[in-house]
């Protein structure tokens, strides 16, 4: 043994074969695995780090156009200077500018925000002097609540519920790793002074007097202490409002020598506001046992939302929070308040992870069965022991490398499973073979080490090739890069771990448990096969390959068939683009759609409602109630919570779609929770698809209403699936163009949930003071403004100092709706002039009806308007190309043709020098980016593998032959998708990358054997034939392991594509590789021989 120079594999095997360290190693690795499984944070989907922040600057009184010029444009320029900024989206509204800065994916969060702060604050001098201080607010995915608990009741109103919720929230804050605990919905206590303008007028009290009276009398001032009787004693002026009665009895003026009290001119109430602008309701659906019982519908609701700290385990935090909620429910929450967990990302993550762990075990079991069948149970057991060890090492690497256990991580492990058993199989098989051909005088240990040593280099090569291929996924950029990161990280680590474990544990175990005589019988059998008394499978193989070797026409026909099959397969994907009926419309009978990431089966979806901007909140509520009525008939709906006048509790998706945090009379959301996906046969995708026409039927009666049924995407969130970004120099032009594009969208196949950002014009009563008249009446514009602000919306005058109140209670004065003042008739509103005489406002101002300032949107420094849409059943690629065909070159409002773009692999930036421009964004852009990156990754990986093989074979052509197995995979890929009925997606692309690694390995083994056979002096044709026949069985074994290991993934809506590509591609490729590669090698070798013959002549 000592005479052989051992390689890496052999040295490892030799060190560990009898060592006690091996057992220690096994136990240590197993323990590591347990720790890793328990400790690694779990998530449903990998976290995508996109630092983003919102900068708001106010410029009181400025019109939208002014704000655009004075704030948005300069700030955008400044922010654009920051390196790492991806997109800047701004909105210029009346008096305020909001600029959202999105950094490139993967930029460090803190650093990016610091840079942003720096720039923004340094830019103060470039902004108008009356502009407010810029406020920078980070948009943080870590602040997205992981648990939401809704308190709902038909007995208590949301004011009472909020008070209970506040108590509960206080008790949650001390939970470990909890970050933001917020309460959404409900109303807070206030002391409302409902002013009666008529009574004010009668008492000669003006609004400004009333206003002034409060500020001056709600005071409590501690004074300097005094010393009396040798002791320091404190002094305090105490005149603050302690109750609503104090407010009522506040004197506002003196009229006719008699004091006028607040109660004389106003109604004072203490409690929730009487006029509600936003609220939330909760209802149980037919999927819950409480449905249909009394008081289970339309309950007032308040939601407690809990976020976790960055890096904390969602499962642990969520469980702790829910445990506390349950205990509080038992101890102090009244019985008739329903406490319902409406979001539990912890459980979601846990369920997803556990399901996948289960799948992993099933896959492991399947592979085990295959091995047992092919190798015998002892060998199978040894291989199966190595698998958990490899997984343990990989998970430990996850824990150390900060990768969470999530769906993608686990899919990576399942995917790796088929590959990582390979190393152990190869080792054990070789040991097996050596044991069979036992030579006298060699010890068992020596034999084992030699056997391991023998296959070491080839295995290393193949493993490095696979690692290279998967590591290429690191090249994927953007959000998709973050999404697929766990695959790029885990698979190479698992592969590396697999060889190490195979070299350490397998020889040790084989040495311990495999007996020489045990294997002899089988081995003899196998050797017989190799010697030319082949088994049935090998005989069939030989019968098929011989004519290919010997007869040119057969070979030619075979080649043609392969090319035709490849063409046909590619055509399945490409037909849609070239078919005579155009790219729009349904996918053809045999076609396979090319998408990005399919939707996932979820337990929830969100209905986002945008009414026209001039809709009162009551009308919004009416529409939402109509939708809610439909939801109450859906049998899979467990519960739903409607949010009127405000968006619901934000989620990761909403944060990036820009739907989170919206407020206003025209805004509504319905969060729908479905029965658990394991308990229903219908997927959420189908439920939403069937529900949508019902919503559309309701929507038909409400012109201008935009409803989007938002399903949480499995991957990166997007603004819209199909998104047209219209850039142009002029707002009115953009609006006209937007209408036109919208019409084109409406006429497109499968387009649903259309939205656009062009607002409806809201009538505005512009109150213009008559400066001269006001001056003659001795009234200032500021006084007019003050009076108007009280009449419209009211003013917070002061804060009451109530004992035992945990929230500030505002004293708010306003004119209630029953005394509402018509803006066209301001004769009931009075202002005090300098002499104290009341002057009716109608005499000082003129009221002009106009339309309100429309917000101006910018994206990346250009004016923009968006038109977005979802697709119910198809992929955006076709819809966009169809729209592109119809929209490219239409006449834009400036008379020039509309330029369209952003459909190439490199991202385009807006440019309006040549007029209006349409850039396609949304899923289309991400699809292009991801396919581009994956293409580059695949190309790079293949190139790297090629170089590796060139180095190994010292030939330029042999690696090409070895890699010819990759394109053969295509034959299986598209028909595979077609058979399963899935779209070709980004994960299918990952499948192709994985497939390349696997099939190259197959051909490497064949070529290795041919060369081995040639070395042993076999004639070329026999060597080729025999190599194919001998390698057939192990190749089929590997293929089977991969196919069966990945088969469990096919049912997954998202990663199904990966499995389909891998399985069908591997099967097709393997089936053909065993013929194509030997034949090509033979042709190459023949030519090579001829050349050398010619040369030698």
């Amino acid at each position, binding site marked *: 043994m000592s005479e052989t120079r051992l390689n890496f594999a052999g040295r490892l095997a030799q060190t560990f074969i009898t060592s006690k360290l091996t057992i220690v190693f096994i136990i240590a690795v197993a323990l590591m695995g347990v720790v890793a499984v328990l400790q690694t944070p779990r998530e449903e989907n990998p976290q995508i780090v996109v630092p983003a922040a919102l900068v708001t600057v106010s410029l009181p009184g400025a019109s939208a156009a002014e704000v655009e010029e004075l704030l948005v444009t300069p700030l955008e320029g400044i922010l654009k200077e920051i390196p790492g900024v991806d997109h800047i989206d701004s909105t210029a509204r009346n008096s305020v500018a909001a600029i959202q800065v999105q950094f490139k994916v993967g930029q460090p969060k803190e650093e990016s925000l610091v840079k942003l702060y720096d720039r923004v604050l340094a830019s103060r001098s470039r902004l108008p002097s009356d502009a407010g201080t810029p406020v920078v607010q980070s948009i943080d995915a870590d602040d997205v609540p992981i648990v939401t608990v809704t308190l709902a009741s038909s007995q208590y109103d949301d004011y009472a519920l909020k008070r209970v919720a506040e108590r509960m929230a206080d008790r949650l804050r001390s939970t470990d790793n909890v970050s933001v605990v917020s309460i959404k919905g409900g109303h807070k206590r206030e002391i409302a002074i409902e002013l009666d303008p008529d009574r004010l007028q009668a008492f000669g009290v003006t609004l400004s007097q009333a206003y002034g009276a409060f500020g001056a009398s709600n005071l409590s001032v501690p004074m300097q202490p005094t010393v009396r009787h040798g002791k320091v004693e404190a002094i305090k002026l105490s005149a603050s409002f302690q109750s609503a009665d104090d407010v009522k009895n506040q004197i506002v003026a003196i009229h006719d020598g008699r004091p006028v009290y607040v109660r004389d001119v106003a109604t004072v109430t203490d409690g929730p506001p009487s006029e509600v602008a936003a609220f939330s309701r909760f209802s149980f659906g037919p999927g819950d046992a409480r449905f249909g019982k009394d008081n289970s*519908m339309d309950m007032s609701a308040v939601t407690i939302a809990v976020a976790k700290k960055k890096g904390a385990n969602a499962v642990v935090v969520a469980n702790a929070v829910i445990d506390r909620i349950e205990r509080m429910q038992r101890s102090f929450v009244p019985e008739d308040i329903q406490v319902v967990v409406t979001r539990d990302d912890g459980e979601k993550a846990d369920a997803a992870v556990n399901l996948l762990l289960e799948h992993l075990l099933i896959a492991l079991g399947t592979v085990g069965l295959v091995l047992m069948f092919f190798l015998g149970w002892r060998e199978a057991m040894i291989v199966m022991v190595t698998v958990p060890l490899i997984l343990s090492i990989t998970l430990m690497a996850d824990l150390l490398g900060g990768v969470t256990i999530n769906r993608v991580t686990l899919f990576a492990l399942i995917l790796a499973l088929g590959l990582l058993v390979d190393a152990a199989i190869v080792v054990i098989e070789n040991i097996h073979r050596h044991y069979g051909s036992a030579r006298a005088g060699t010890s068992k240990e020596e034999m084992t080490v030699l056997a391991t040593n023998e296959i070491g280099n080839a295995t290393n090569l193949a493993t490095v090739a696979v690692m290279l291929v998967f590591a290429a996924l690191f090249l994927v950029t953007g959000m998709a890069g973050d999404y697929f990161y766990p695959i790029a990280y885990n698979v190479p680590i698992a592969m590396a771990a697999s060889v190490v474990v195979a070299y350490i544990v397998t020889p040790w175990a084989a040495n311990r448990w495999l007996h020489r005589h045990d294997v002899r019988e089988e081995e003899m059998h196998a050797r017989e096969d190799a010697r030319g008394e082949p088994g049935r499978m090998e005989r069939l193989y030989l019968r098929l390959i011989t004519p290919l070797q010997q007869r040119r026409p057969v070979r030619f026909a075979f080649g043609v068939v392969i090319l035709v099959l490849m063409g046909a397969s590619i055509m399945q994907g490409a037909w849609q683009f070239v078919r005579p009926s155009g790219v729009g419309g349904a996918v053809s009978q045999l076609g396979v759609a090319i998408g990005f990431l399919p939707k996932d089966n979820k337990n929830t979806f969100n209905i986002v409602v945008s009414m026209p901007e001039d809709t009162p909140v009551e009308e919004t509520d009416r529409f939402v109630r109509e939708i809610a009525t439909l939801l109450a008939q859906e049998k899979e709906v467990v519960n739903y919570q409607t949010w009127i006048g405000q968006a619901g509790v934000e989620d990761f998706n909403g944060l990036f779609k820009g739907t989170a945090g919206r407020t206003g009379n025209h805004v509504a959301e319905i969060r729908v929770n479905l029965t658990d996906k394991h308990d229903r046969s219908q997927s959420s995708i189908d439920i939403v698809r069937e529900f949508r026409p019902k919503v559309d039927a309701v929507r038909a009666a409400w012109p201008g209403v935009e409803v989007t049924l938002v399903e949480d995407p499995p991957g990166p969130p997007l603004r819209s699936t199909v998104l047209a970004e219209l850039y142009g120099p002029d707002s009115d032009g953009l609006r006209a163009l937007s209408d036109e594009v919208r019409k084109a969208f409406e006429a497109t196949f499968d387009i649903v949930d259309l939205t656009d950002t062009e607002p409806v014009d809201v009538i505005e009563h512009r109150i213009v003071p008559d400066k001269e008249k006001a001056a003659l009446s001795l009234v200032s514009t500021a006084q007019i403004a003050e009076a108007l602000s009280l009449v419209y919306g009211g003013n917070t005058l002061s804060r009451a100092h109530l004992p035992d109140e945990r929230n500030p209670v505002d004293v708010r004065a306003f004119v209630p709706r029953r005394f509402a003042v018509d803006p066209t008739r301001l004769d009931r509103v009075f202002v005090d002039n300098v002499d104290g005489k009341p*002057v*009716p406002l109608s005499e000082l101002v003129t009221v002009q009806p106009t339309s309100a300032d429309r917000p101006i949107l910018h994206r990346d420094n250009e004016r923009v308007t968006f038109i977005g849409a979802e697709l119910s059943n198809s992929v955006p690629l076709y819809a966009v190309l169809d729209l592109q065909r119809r929209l490219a070159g239409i006449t834009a409002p400036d008379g020039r043709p509309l330029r369209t773009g952003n459909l190439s692999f490199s991202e385009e930036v807006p440019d309006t020098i040549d007029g209006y421009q349409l850039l396609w964004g949304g899923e289309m852009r991400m699809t292009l980016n991801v396919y581009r990156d994956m293409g580059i990754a695949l190309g790079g990986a293949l190139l790297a593998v090629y170089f590796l093989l060139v180095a190994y074979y010292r030939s330029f052509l042999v690696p090409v032959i070895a890699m010819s197995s990759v394109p053969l995979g295509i034959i299986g890929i598209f028909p595979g998708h077609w058979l399963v009925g899935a779209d070709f997606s980004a994960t299918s692309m990952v499948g192709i990358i994985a497939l390349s690694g696997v099939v190259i390995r197959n051909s490497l083994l064949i070529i290795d054997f041919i060369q081995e056979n040639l070395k042993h002096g076999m004639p070329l044709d026999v060597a080729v034939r025999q190599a194919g026949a001998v390698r057939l069985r192990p190749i089929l074994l590997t293929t089977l392991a991969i196919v069966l290991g990945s088969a469990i993934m096919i049912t997954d809506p998202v990663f199904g594509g990966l499995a389909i590509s891998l399985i069908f591609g591997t099967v097709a490729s393997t089936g053909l590789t065993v013929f194509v590669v030997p034949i090509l090698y033979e042709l190459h070798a023949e030519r090579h021989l001829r050349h050398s013959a010619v040369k030698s002549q």
Partner: protein
Amino acid sequence: MRTVLRTAPALIFLCFLTAAAGATTQEKPINLPAFPVTQVEMMEIPITYTVPGSVVSDGRIDVSSRVVGFIEQLDVREGQKVSRGDLLVRIDQTDIDEAVRQAEAGVRASQKDLDDAEQDVEKFARLTQSGTVAAETLRKAKVRVDIARANLDKARAALNSAEAQKSYATVTSPVDGVIVSVARRSGEMATAGSTIMTVESREVLLFKTFVSESNLSAIDPQTPVTVRIDTLKGEVFQGRIRGIVPSGDDVTRRYEVNIVLPSDPRLVPGMFGRAEIVLGKQFVTLIPQVALVRRGGLDGVFVLDGDVARFRWLRTGRVWGDAVEVVSGLSGGETILAAANDTIRDGSVVQTAEEAR
């Protein structure tokens, strides 16, 4: 309280109707309550300009003494009702009495003087005829008679004047009204022209208000004006515009408008009210106030969708008597429950009163 108001009629109605329903029809479940319904309609409502103002008395009389003197008698008190002619104040008369006596004495003296002069004329006339006295003497005697007569007239006038002073010493009420204020007490000195007390007439009450300049042109003096008095639970009085004081305030841009109120014993000057001046007409959606219910902190009504009651959140506006204006939430034509109780929730199946019949 409001809930009781809202539910009580409904409950009574409901008991009645369920009894009726149970008696007449068998298929209808007896325990299903029946509810009155109403149709939401658009109604024409006048656009009014409401101006607040106060009830004032048309006649407000400051009672003062013409004579100077100590107040001898003052028995009336604030708030006392007085009729025309009732004694209000008596001033101490001693000075006046003396003056009268003095004047009487003057009259008597003048009379004597006249008598003497007349006798002289008679005597000189006879003597002139006999030529014993010069004609010149007779002429002078006649002149003396004229002077004496004039003196008598003067003395009589002085007496009349002195006696007239006597009537000024007692002040009686010029109108039927109420004593509003009393400024002096008995024994105090009354100076001429200073107010002793104020009497307010109850004969005509006015509603005094200020109308802004921009609405002045919209006022037609012929149109009756509705006046609501807050303390009388908004009771409506039909008034008549008596006049617009044609001089506005150039600072506040308001003009005083006086509206004559009908006589009503409950109307008291100083009451606060609002005059509604009709400027035009408008269509609004109105619902009865009792139909409004509060669910989960929201005010709204139940709209019938078939026999299912659906809660509709409403934005209500101004109140018109028993009805309330709906600014948003109803489009008109809906059937709503005119009264609902707490058992009804969104989605409840209800039997309407019409069905029950």
